[in-house]
C-alpha cells in the first residue's frame, strides 16, 4: 500500500490484529510510518462470509475515516540510524552476582537485540578475532536486509556471529549464507515478514564443512557438543535477521506461532558416504569447491521408512508425506511468483518452491543399488507426486491472454475438460532437492519449501 501512497493515492489496508506490529514494522522500513491500516480480530482465510462481514462492519467508520485523515504515526524509533560507519559501543557493568553475570544479556534483551537465549558478549576483541575468518573489509555491505532495511556490513555480521558462539573458521559459511539472502531469487523479504511458519535452512557442500567443524553425521541437526558449529552458524544467521534485518518476534516477524527451526538450521551433506554426487556438483560446481545453499522452508516432517522392501517403496513413502490439499501443489500452472526488490519495489520472477529432502545415506544407497541416479529419483518423485488438475483450477483463476489461452502452460489447457486429469505437484524434478546427510538409517526429513532458494560459493581463506 506504500507504493499506492507513493503514487499519490490515499490508501488504507485491512489486516488481522495479530499483524499490527508486523505491519507497523514494515511500513517503518518502507519510510512511511503513518501508512494507514485498520485491524480486525482474526485473519479472513477460510472464514465464512457472514463472519468476515461482522468483523468489517465493526471497523467500517475507521476504514472510511482513514481515506480522509492521516493518522498520527505510531512508529517507535529503534536501532541505530547514525549514518556513520562507527559502531556504537556500550559499557556494561558486570559483577559476580547472578544479575551481574547476566548484565550483557539483560542489556541486549532490553533493546530486543537477541534471540532470547544468552549470548557471548560481542566485545571489540572478540569481533576483531571473528574478522580474521574473512578477507572482506569490515564496512563492505553484503545486502540491505528487510524489513528494516538494515545495512549488513561484514562487521555487523561478525558481531552477531560472536554473539551466536561462532568461531572464525565458521564465519565464511555465515557470510556465504548472507550472500545467498542478498540474491533476488531468495526473496528474503517474504521469508522475513510472512505469517507462514518458515525459516532458512543452510545447506553446506564441499571441504569447508570439515574445516568449519560442521557435523554431517548422526544428530547433526540436533543439540550436542558435536553439533556446536551447526548450531552456532544457524543461530548467527537468525541473530543477523533480527538485529540487521529488524525482523523481531511479533514485529517484523509475524509468524502465527513460530518454529523451533527458526533458532537456526545448518547442515552439510555427508559427501563421504553418499552414493551420489553432492548437491553443489548438480549445480555445476567442482567437488573441491565449497558452497552454501539457503532455502526457505517449513517443517520438517520426519519420514519413517522401516518397512519398505525396495527403492520404489521408499520413494512412495517419501512422496506420500509431501503434499496435502489446499497448500499450493500445482500452483506453477499460474506462473512464477515474484520477489520484491528493496526500495525500488521492482518485481523479479523466481522459480519456487524447492523442497529439501534430507535423505539418510541408507535410503540413498537403496536407490543407488537399484540403479537409480539422484536425477532418476527426482524424476520419479516428479512423475509420481501429482495433484488433481481440477483441484488446482478450483483454487483461483489461471491467467489467460485476450483470447482465453492460458498464459503460462497453454499446452496443458486441453486437460482442463478432463475431470480425471492430474499434473505434477511441482514444475520440475530439480525442485525435489535431495540432500544426503545424517546417520545411515531408515529415515528422511522432508522440508516444505516456501519462498526462495539461492546458492553461492564460500570464500576461500
Amino acid at each position, binding site marked *: 500500500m506504500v507504493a499506492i501512497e507513493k503514487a499519490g493515492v*490515499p*490508501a488504507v489496508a485491512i489486516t488481522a490484529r495479530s499483524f499490527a506490529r508486523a505491519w507497523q514494522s514494515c511500513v517503518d522500513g518502507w519510510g512511511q510510518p503513518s501508512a494507514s491500516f485498520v485491524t480486525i480480530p482474526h485473519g479472513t482465510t477460510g472464514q465464512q462470509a457472514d463472519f468476515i462481514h461482522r468483523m468489517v*462492519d465493526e471497523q467500517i467508520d475507521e476504514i472510511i475515516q482513514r481515506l*480522509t485523515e492521516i493518522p498520527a504515526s505510531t512508529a517507535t524509533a529503534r536501532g541505530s540510524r547514525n549514518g556513520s560507519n562507527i559502531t556504537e559501543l556500550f559499557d556494561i*557493568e558486570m559483577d559476580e552476582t547472578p544479575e551481574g553475570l547476566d548484565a550483557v544479556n539483560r542489556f541486549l534483551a532490553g533493546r530486543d537485540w537477541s534471540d532470547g537465549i544468552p549470548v557471548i558478549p560481542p566485545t571489540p576483541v572478540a569481533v576483531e578475532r571473528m574478522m580474521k575468518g574473512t578477507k572482506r573489509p569490515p564496512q563492505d555491505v553484503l545486502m540491505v536486509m528487510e524489513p528494516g532495511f538494515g545495512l549488513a556490513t561484514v562487521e555487523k555480521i561478525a558481531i552477531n556471529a560472536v554473539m551466536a558462539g561462532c568461531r572464525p573458521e565458521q564465519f565464511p559459511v555465515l557470510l556465504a549464507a548472507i550472500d545467498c539472502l542478498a540474491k533476488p531469487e531468495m526473496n528474503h523479504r517474504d521469508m522475513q515478514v510472512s505469517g507462514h511458519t518458515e525459516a532458512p535452512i543452510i545447506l553446506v557442500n564441499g571441504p569447508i564443512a570439515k574445516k568449519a567443524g560442521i557435523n554431517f553425521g548422526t544428530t547433526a541437526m540436533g543439540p550436542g557438543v558435536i553439533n556446536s558449529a551447526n548450531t552456532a552458524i544457524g543461530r548467527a544467521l537468525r541473530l543477523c535477521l533480527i538485529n540487521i534485518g529488524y525482523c523481531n518476534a511479533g514485529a517484523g516477524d509475524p509468524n502465527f506461532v513460530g518454529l523451533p527451526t527458526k533458532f537456526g538450521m545448518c547442515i552439510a551433506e555427508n559427501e563421504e558416504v553418499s552414493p551420489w554426487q553432492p548437491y553443489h556438483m548438480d549445480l555445476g560446481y567442482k567437488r573441491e569447491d565449497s558452497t552454501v545453499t539457503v532455502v526457505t522452508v517449513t517443517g520438517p516432517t520426519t519420514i519413517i521408512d522401516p518397512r519398505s522392501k525396495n527403492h520404489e517403496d521408499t520413494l512412495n513413502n517419501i512422496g506420500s508425506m509431501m503434499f496435502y490439499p489446499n497448500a499450493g501443489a500445482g500452483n506453477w500452472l499460474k506462473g512464477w511468483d515474484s520477489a520484491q526488490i528493496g526500495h525500488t519495489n521492482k518485481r523479479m520472477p523466481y522459480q519456487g518452491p524447492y523442497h529439501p529432502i534430507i535423505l539418510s545415506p541408507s535410503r540413498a544407497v537403496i536407490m543407488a543399488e537399484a540403479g537409480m541416479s539422484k536425477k532418476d529419483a527426482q524424476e520419479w518423485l516428479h512423475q509420481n507426486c501429482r495433484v488433481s488438475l481440477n483441484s488446482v483450477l478450483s483454487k483461483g483463476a489461471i491467467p489467460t491472454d485476450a483470447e482465453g489461452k492460458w498464459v503460462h502452460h497453454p499446452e496443458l489447457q486441453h486437460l482442463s475438460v478432463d475431470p480425471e486429469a492430474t499434473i505434477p505437484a511441482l514444475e520440475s524434478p530439480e525442485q525435489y532437492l535431495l540432500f544426503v546427510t545424517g546417520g545411515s538409517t531408515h529415515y528422511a526429513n522432508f522440508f516444505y519449501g516456501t519462498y526462495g532458494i539461492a546458492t553461492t560459493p564460500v570464500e576461500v581463506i
Partner: protein
Amino acid sequence: MKLQIMSPAADRVDYKVPPAPRLSGLRGKTIGLYNNMTGGADIAVDRVAEHISKRYPGVKFERYGGDLRSGRPSLSRGTHIDDKEASIIAMEVDAMIGATAH
C-alpha cells in the same frame, strides 16, 4: 568490572515516503478495492464497498487482485503492486482500500 560490547543492530537506510493527500470526501469518487488473493480478502473489501455505496451513492469501484485486466499483472500476494502498476492505478482511482487475509 566494565565490559565493553559492540552494537549488533545495523544502521538503516533512511527512506521516506510522504503520505498521499487525503480526500476531502468520498462523494463522486472512484475507490480501488485490492485483495491480495488470499482467502476472504475479496469478501472483506466487497463488504466495505457495500457500506460505502449505501452512505455515498454514486461512488464507483475498481477491483484489483487476480487476473482482472488483460495486459496487466495478475496481482496477488506473490505479485505485489510495484511502482509501475501503482502509477497506472493512480490514474484509475482516487483512493484504495486493500485487504490481506491471513
